[in-house]
């Protein structure tokens, strides 16, 4: 059987449907998918749209095979999500970041059915609750406000672009229309009430039972205080204000506090720790950059307005638009974004490090002996190096293609060093494409409060940081934790299955506005309100620019903000630890 290289990542459809509803058919249809090159499907006799079983050394999963022009013979692509996580490589090579790209896989036709989301994790220790959404009815609006409000300069709460020019029309306390947002941002703002949780719950005898908020807070506090090594994970979709409370809570209960950067740009931190980082805000790039590189990222799908608002297509002060810029795209496959490239470099999966090494050599005018590096002919490397050196202002944007592949943090270290080297010739900066809404802000908060930006172990009473040891991914994969507080994220959908298996063995508290896959195995569920829709909060854009996300509608009755819930848990924990 021929072996493929499996890549996982974002797609526009997966992103959009995720916002519409994780338990929806649309989400399953967009995430339980395996994109393949036409030639590969023909060779294996797989019909477009038929089910296939994808197997790796780490697991197997049934998904739907679809022909895609965005892949290349030998490479298959499964969108990020719980289906992908059944087969990814949990090994983080001591970096905290599992190997979510570049995994050897086999594909064969199958008559088996695609599992529903919660069925994927039903074989583990704790049975996931099956949610009957038809039984859940919203409790009616809090607000008696009627009339139409037109909000301008609304801060979007989907991705690291944090576009702050959205226009939202709210009528009778409901969002009616959204202007200027991308498809995913719009999907979030128009569908945020889907699959919503309205009441706190506690798991009793395999069932989720509605309880009062006080009872849920008490249960959460007890779980955390009784734990010897709890993790407090997530944070990226909530505000800085909530994150500050999270660090305080982790410190009080002697746990590990960590955010989603562990499976995103944690390796970027690792690279920065070795060499620093040379960067600029997005406006500086928009105004001045005449050369844009997208390396291992697919902004058209993952950061849809990025090219128009900040980079390739954007109208800047000195550089007026696309015509005055050159675009280089480096990827393992012809991604949707690659079509805008002036130069497209297809690099062998897992060999970005080798390619960057060659580029750095050439830029310093050293000869390289090999005729081909990382699958790229030497001429093309020379051509790229020439474009880099002769730019007036170059900007390198990079994503999971560098952080998730073999090399992990070292890949980023080299990309940063490439940019540092280029500063001998011309002006050059690098910027990570942050994924989750406020992941950059929560990293910043953790850094100023503890000294480290993520994966912080407070179990000995002071901050310690060592991804590989203190990263929540590895902690769960090894089964080191004995309790988990999951907030503003869904690790059951995005961590490798080996981590989820251990998550089902420990008490889990979930704080989230919506049902997530993690909620289905939670022991305590506390619903909260959305930052940037129902609650104010400070959030940071991918370049560190701080913005104030605003409340434009009121949350449902009885639903508090993450901040308020965390304050209550902290108060309860302090009472139990230090007395009234």
């Amino acid at each position, binding site marked *: 059987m021929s072996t493929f290289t499996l890549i996982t990542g974002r797609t526009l459809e997966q992103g959009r449907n995720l916002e519409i509803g994780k338990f929806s058919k649309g989400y399953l249809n967009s995430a339980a998918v395996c994109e393949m090159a036409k030639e590969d499907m023909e060779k294996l006799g797989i019909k477009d749209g038929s089910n296939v079983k994808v197997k790796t050394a780490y697991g197997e999963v049934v998904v739907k095979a679809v022909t895609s022009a965005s892949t290349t013979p030998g490479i298959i692509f499964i969108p990020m999500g719980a289906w992908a996580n059944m087969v990814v490589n949990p090994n983080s090579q001591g970096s905290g970041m599992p190997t979510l790209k570049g995994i050897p896989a086999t594909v064969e036709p199958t008559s088996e059915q695609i599992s529903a989301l919660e069925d994927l994790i039903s074989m583990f220790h704790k049975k996931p609750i099956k949610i009957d959404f038809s039984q859940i009815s919203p409790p009616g609006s809090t607000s008696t406000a009627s009339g139409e409000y037109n909000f301008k300069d609304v801060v979007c709460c989907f991705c690291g672009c944090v576009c702050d020019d959205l226009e939202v029309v709210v009528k009778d306390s409901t969002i009616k229309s959204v202007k200027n947002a991308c498809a995913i941002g719009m999907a979030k703002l128009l569908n945020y009430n889907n699959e919503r949780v309205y009441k706190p719950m506690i798991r009793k005898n395999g069932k989720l039972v509605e309880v009062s908020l006080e009872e849920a807070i008490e249960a959460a506090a007890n779980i955390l205080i009784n734990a010897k090594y709890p993790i407090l994970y997530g944070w990226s979709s909530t505000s800085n204000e909530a994150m500050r409370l999270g660090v305080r809570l982790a410190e009080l209960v002697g746990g590990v506090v960590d955010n989603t950067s562990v499976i995103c740009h944690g390796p970027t931190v690792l690279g920065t720790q070795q060499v620093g980082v040379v960067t600029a805000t997005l406006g500086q790039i928009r105004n001045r950059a005449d050369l844009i590189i997208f390396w291992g990222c697919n902004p058209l799908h993952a950061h849809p307005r990025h090219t128009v608002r900040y980079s390739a297509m954007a109208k800047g002060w000195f550089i007026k638009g696309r015509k005055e810029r050159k675009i280089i795209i480096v990827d393992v496959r012809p991604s949707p974004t690659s079509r805008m490239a002036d130069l497209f470099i297809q690099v062998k999966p897992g060999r970005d490090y080798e390619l960057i090494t060659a580029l750095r050599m050439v830029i310093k005018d050293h000869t390289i002996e090999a005729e081909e590096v990382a699958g790229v002919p030497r001429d093309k490397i020379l051509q790229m190096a020439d474009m880099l050196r002769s730019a007036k202002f170059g900007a390198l944007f990079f994503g999971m293609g560098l952080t998730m592949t*073999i090399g992990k943090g070292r890949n980023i270290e080299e990309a940063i060093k490439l940019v540092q080297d280029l500063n001998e010739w011309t002006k050059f900066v690098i910027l990570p494409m942050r994924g989750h809404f406020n992941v950059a802000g929560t990293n910043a908060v953790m850094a100023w409060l503890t000294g480290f930006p993520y994966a912080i172990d407070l179990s000995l009473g002071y901050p310690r940081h*060592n*991804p590989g*040891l203190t990263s929540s991914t590895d902690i769960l994969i090894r089964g*080191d934790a004995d309790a988990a507080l999951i907030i503003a994220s869904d690790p059951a959908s995005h961590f490798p299955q080996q981590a989820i298996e251990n998550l089902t063995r420990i008490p889990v508290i979930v704080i989230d506005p919506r049902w997530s896959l993690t909620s289905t195995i939670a022991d305590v569920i506390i619903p909260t309100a959305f930052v940037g829709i129902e609650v104010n909060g400070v959030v940071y854009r991918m370049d560190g620019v701080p913005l104030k996300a605003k409340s434009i509608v009121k949350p449902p009755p009885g639903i508090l903000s993450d901040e308020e819930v965390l304050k209550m848990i902290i108060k309860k924990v302090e009472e139990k630890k230090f007395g009234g």
Partner: protein
Amino acid sequence: MGEVTLKPKFTFHVPVEMFNVSPDMFSAKTVKEIGELKAYEGNREKKLSDLFDIEGEPGGKPEEVTIIVKGDISKARRLGKGMTAGKIVVEGNAGHMVGYGMRGGMITIHGNAGLWVGCKMKDGVIEIFGNAEDNVGGSLRGEKPGKGMSGGVILIHGNAGAEVGRGMKGGSIIVDGDVGPLVGVDMVGGNIGVKGNCEGKAGARMKGGRVVICGSIPEILSSFYIEEVRESIKVKPEKFTGPFYVFIGDALADIKCNGRLLVSINNNPHLKPYEKFLE
């Protein structure tokens, strides 16, 4: 004589800090006093006697102490930290950061070890009969090259993970099995010998020292130049038989290229094109 046995009282679930388990900390103490030594079970401060059944009689000096751990301590952290002499034997898996900052003596692990074996080790011997994970003999994050292992010997009979010898300055690491990517990354001195295969990116940014790969490696970094062919090389305490391609590098770390990357000729036919650069 001089033996102290530790048996875990229960199966550890959360990380257990064992930095006080070393011949230096045990020597000239009674079993009762050893039991009073501080340990941590997750965030709970404990005594060693809370976690282990302790028996035996340590010697008066560290070099007269042998500590035997009977059982699985894969949740352990920093076993043997800073020890200067004596022995530790683990009849099972040891955890992470075994022999942190060790200065002498010997640690033997019959099972597998985790991350950062021999982290910042100065001297002594660590022998792992099973596999080791990543960052063997490594420096800590953010530290500049050369802050890793500076002396001593680490022997791994199984496989090792990524970044073996990261930031290493001296000493030897020998792996009987395969290693992951980035073996010898940021090293400034010392020797690494790998009898099996390497996943790639060997010798990345090395300024000095030697990395020997007897198995296969998919590609050589272009910051290395081929210099010669060699029949064999000593990586104390062993000798590796080639023949080997000898590459010098890493030109990006230091243009003087004092690092040496030796790669088996027989197991890497795809590297034959380099031979045209040899006179």
